[in-house]
């Protein structure tokens, strides 16, 4: 099992490599120009946000099935990090939209469904913070975490299902071949790897704190 300091070291090294590739190595896009370099952080951040919500589903199913507090802590920690990543996806998207589309925000299907995703998991965190740890609050939140994930494939498919100003997927099953050239794909994959490593590190830290919080709450309850 990798230590947390090792995880921090790996994600930092990968981040520095990504920065070097984005600013020094990858060619400038002929159509979008320099603003296209935002792609190498915007898309990986979005994908890692989806991954985080996938982990919420795993944790929530585990909690409902086995009543395991560890799984509940995993779901909570991942939801919190997922909201951080989704917020960054929305902010970096706006910072890319302004120079390219001339507006900070437009109610296009992909942007709107992404915002709905952010609202769903923010509501999940609010539900958790207003209810005591464990018990009914955790059960409701687990159901919400699972149902909320249904929005993730909708976000991914939105640009294909509806006419959208947002570009179509450049990676995954919907991507057209040859959308990205060699160096661009390598830089993108490096970014994806770096943000996944960072997510793993943050998840390990937040999970550990959440577990300690649960144990402390139980101790305080039994002491009172």
């Amino acid at each position: 099992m990798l230590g947390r300091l090792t995880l921090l070291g790996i994600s930092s090294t990968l981040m520095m490599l990504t920065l070097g590739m984005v600013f020094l190595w990858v060619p400038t896009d002929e159509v979008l120009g320099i603003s296209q370099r935002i792609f190498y952080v915007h898309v990986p951040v979005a994908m890692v946000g989806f991954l985080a919500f996938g982990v919420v589903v795993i944790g929530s199913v585990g909690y409902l099935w086995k009543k395991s507090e560890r799984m509940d802590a995993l779901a909570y920690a991942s939801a919190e990090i997922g909201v951080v990543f989704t917020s960054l996806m929305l902010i970096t998207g706006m910072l890319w939209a302004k120079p390219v589309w001339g507006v900070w925000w437009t109610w296009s299907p992909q942007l709107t469904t992404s915002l709905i995703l952010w609202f769903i998991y923010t509501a999940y965190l609010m539900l958790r913070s207003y209810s005591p740890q464990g018990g009914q609050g955790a059960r409701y939140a687990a159901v919400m975490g699972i149902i909320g994930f249904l929005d993730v494939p909708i976000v991914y498919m939105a640009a294909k299902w509806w006419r959208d100003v947002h570009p179509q997927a450049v990676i995954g099953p919907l991507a057209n071949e040859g959308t990205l050239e060699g160096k661009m794909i390598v830089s993108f994959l490096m970014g994806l790897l770096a943000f996944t490593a960072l997510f793993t590190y943050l998840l390990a830290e937040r999970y550990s704190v959440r577990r300690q919080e649960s144990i402390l709450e139980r101790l305080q309850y039994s002491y009172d």
Partner: protein
Amino acid sequence: MTKRFTTLLAILIFLAPAMLGSSHIEGEAYLPFLFAVFGVLWLSFFGYAYFISRKQADLKREIDALHYSTKDVENG
């Protein structure tokens, strides 16, 4: 050790775009947006890491308080 490493990393990451970008990239009109993206990204991640470390410190304080109060009860 971790704090020093994180601070050094933060400085490097904030300076890297400016150092690497200044001599290399064309289309300077979009540079503020590019730097804003990296600035927002890193400020958020370091802010979140700080939030987690504060939570950890608060937990430690609460555990210590609980430890002392149980000791008081044990000692009568």
